[in-house]
């Protein structure tokens, strides 16, 4: 009997030791980044404010933009307040990122692909329901639109949406169910068909159905679709965010692809918001608000333009007017009744997008 107790004790001791080692190692790593930033801030020791860290949870195509902007803002904040700010980034599909925030990822700010995803976070009670009015311009400091990226010389002669459903044209777009960008693609196509037919929804549905028949691969995200088009050389035209199309030219060579702007597209307004629950808990509201407000300033708008998003500040937009073609743009609020309505009608289970893939429909 005694030996049994003895054995149990030893085993418990071993397990305790293992877990202790484990958590010890874990703590070590947890301290790693903070000691790192502590060390870096020692040169600014005389400053009154301790260094602060922000987490910006964003979607896929903003990687390059925020990498540049974070540097700009950190410099501005240090000059303005004498406080060192480190901004951590997390990128992924817009919906997936929103879900992570809902599930407890402690983002101070979210900068996502569509308002619907921020609405979802608001529904979970983390963001105040009137978030869209808290920053200027519907909380959208930059905009973009949907364009066509075609192979050099445009061998298939693609000029507008109608050309996409021509015999033998292959179109690459991600899946609207899993990619925010793809929803903009889909809605732009829908809006075009609706306008062309004078508001005939049956025609529009037939048009998008035909369009998706020309899609050989449905990637789950915008970046995956670009890779399929660029690296795997599949398809004749990629429906892409304008910024992604420009970035592809920059990354893979201007002599490989051309950008075609269709006669009608959609105004994509990727919104930003403060995650109220998190900033109040962490005490970072001031810096988080400044972080988002600074996006509207001239310096930031320039960075935005340089990263191929459309600046919203007229003076900066003027500087970039040679880059971005003026095109008639639909808006989600005026033409589709807002994101919730569009989501419900098109992308929810059993919605129009599901119907076009249902056999026999």
């Amino acid at each position: 009997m005694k030996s049994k107790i003895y054995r149990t004790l030893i085993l418990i001791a071993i397990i305790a030791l293992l877990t202790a080692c484990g958590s010890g190692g874990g703590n070590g790593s947890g301290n790693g980044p903070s000691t790192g930033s502590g060390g870096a801030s020692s040169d600014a020791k005389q400053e009154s404010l301790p260094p602060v860290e922000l987490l910006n949870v964003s979607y896929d195509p903003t990687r390059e933009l925020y990498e540049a902007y974070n540097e700009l803002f950190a410099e501005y904040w240090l000059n303005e307040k004498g406080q060192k700010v480190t901004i951590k980034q997390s990128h992924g599909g817009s919906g997936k990122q929103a879900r992570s925030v809902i599930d407890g990822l402690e983002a101070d700010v979210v900068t996502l692909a569509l308002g619907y995803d921020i609405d979802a976070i608001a529904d979970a009670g983390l963001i105040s329901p009137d978030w869209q009015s808290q920053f200027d311009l519907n909380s959208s400091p930059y905009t973009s639109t949907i364009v066509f990226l075609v192979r050099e010389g445009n061998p298939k002669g693609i000029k507008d949406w109608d050309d996409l459903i021509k015999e033998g044209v292959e179109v690459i777009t991600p899946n609207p169910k899993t990619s925010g960008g793809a929803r903009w693609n889909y809605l732009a196509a829908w809006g075009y068909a609706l306008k062309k037919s004078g508001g005939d929804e049956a025609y529009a549905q037939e048009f998008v159905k035909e369009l998706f028949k020309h899609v050989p691969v449905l990637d789950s995200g915008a970046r995956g679709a670009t890779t399929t088009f660029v690296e795997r050389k599949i398809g004749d035209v990629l429906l892409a965010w304008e910024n992604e199309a420009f970035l592809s030219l920059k990354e893979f060579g201007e002599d490989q692809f051309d950008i075609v702007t269709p006669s009608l597209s959609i105004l994509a307004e990727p919104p930003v918001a403060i995650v109220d629950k998190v900033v109040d808990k962490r005490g970072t509201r001031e810096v988080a608000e400044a972080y988002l407000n600074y996006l509207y300033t001239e310096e930031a708008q320039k960075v935005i333009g340089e990263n191929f998003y459309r600046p919203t500040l007229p003076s900066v937009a003027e500087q970039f007017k040679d880059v971005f073609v003026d095109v008639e743009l639909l808006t989600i609020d005026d033409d589709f009744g807002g994101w919730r309505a569009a989501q419900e009608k098109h992308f929810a289970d059993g919605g129009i997008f599901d119907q076009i893939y249902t056999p026999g429909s």
Partner: protein
Amino acid sequence: MKGSRKASVLPGFGLSLGFTVLYLSLIVIIPLASVLIKTAGMSFTEFWAAVTNARVLAAYKLSFLTAFFAAAVNAVFGLLVAWVLVRYRFPGKRLIDSIVDLPFALPTAVAGIALTSIYAPTGWVGSLLEPLGLKIAYTPIGITIALVFIGLPFVVRTVQPVLQDLDKDVEEAAVMLGAYRWRTFRRVILPELIPPLLTGFALAFARGIGEYGSVVFISGNMPMRTEIAPLLIMTKLEQFDYAGATAIALVMLVISFSLLLLINYMQWRYSRRVQAG
């Protein structure tokens, strides 16, 4: 505890079983039960609608068929690889033996990207097959290849030890009796190999049904055609539809569990038969 089992002189039954069950509960059972709890929030009609939707059914069918074919390919070629590795001598054998475990170690996303770049129409193999009109990437064939990659070690590693321990005398006796090699294989060797082959097949099959990382890159993800069931779970999650996602997950869980239970039961029956004989 005594009396409920055959008395053993060995110590540590309570301790080891207790710890096993505790750890199993904490790591596997309780977390998996959360899937049940989540789906319990749905009414049965909702649940039924979620798991029998045409697209979901098509995805199940695709996942099962490709996993089945991949496991079948692995059963044949895994046996061959194990056979060659155990029975023959050739240069580099030990190295080849190590490489068989690679799919366990390589991150599935890397495997997916690598396989896609090889089998896409611009890839090393894809470009050779394209003129023949054979497409691999973005078709069910591509999915099957990814699953063959994932599942191969399961078959090789279950067959190998048994092959290794196979009694040489029985085989020799068969030869003495004048049986041809092929006949010896079919009548004497194969029956011994059936149980490990089944285990390997089942493990590869079960793993294939659920595989995600390596498949999404090569599958093309076309609804009704090349959309696998785990991708649908992801899709539901992107739409903040937790209940729908867990409903599909639950169906897959139950199937995997039944499959494994069946195999373990068959193994147990088999080992009893061997012991009795």
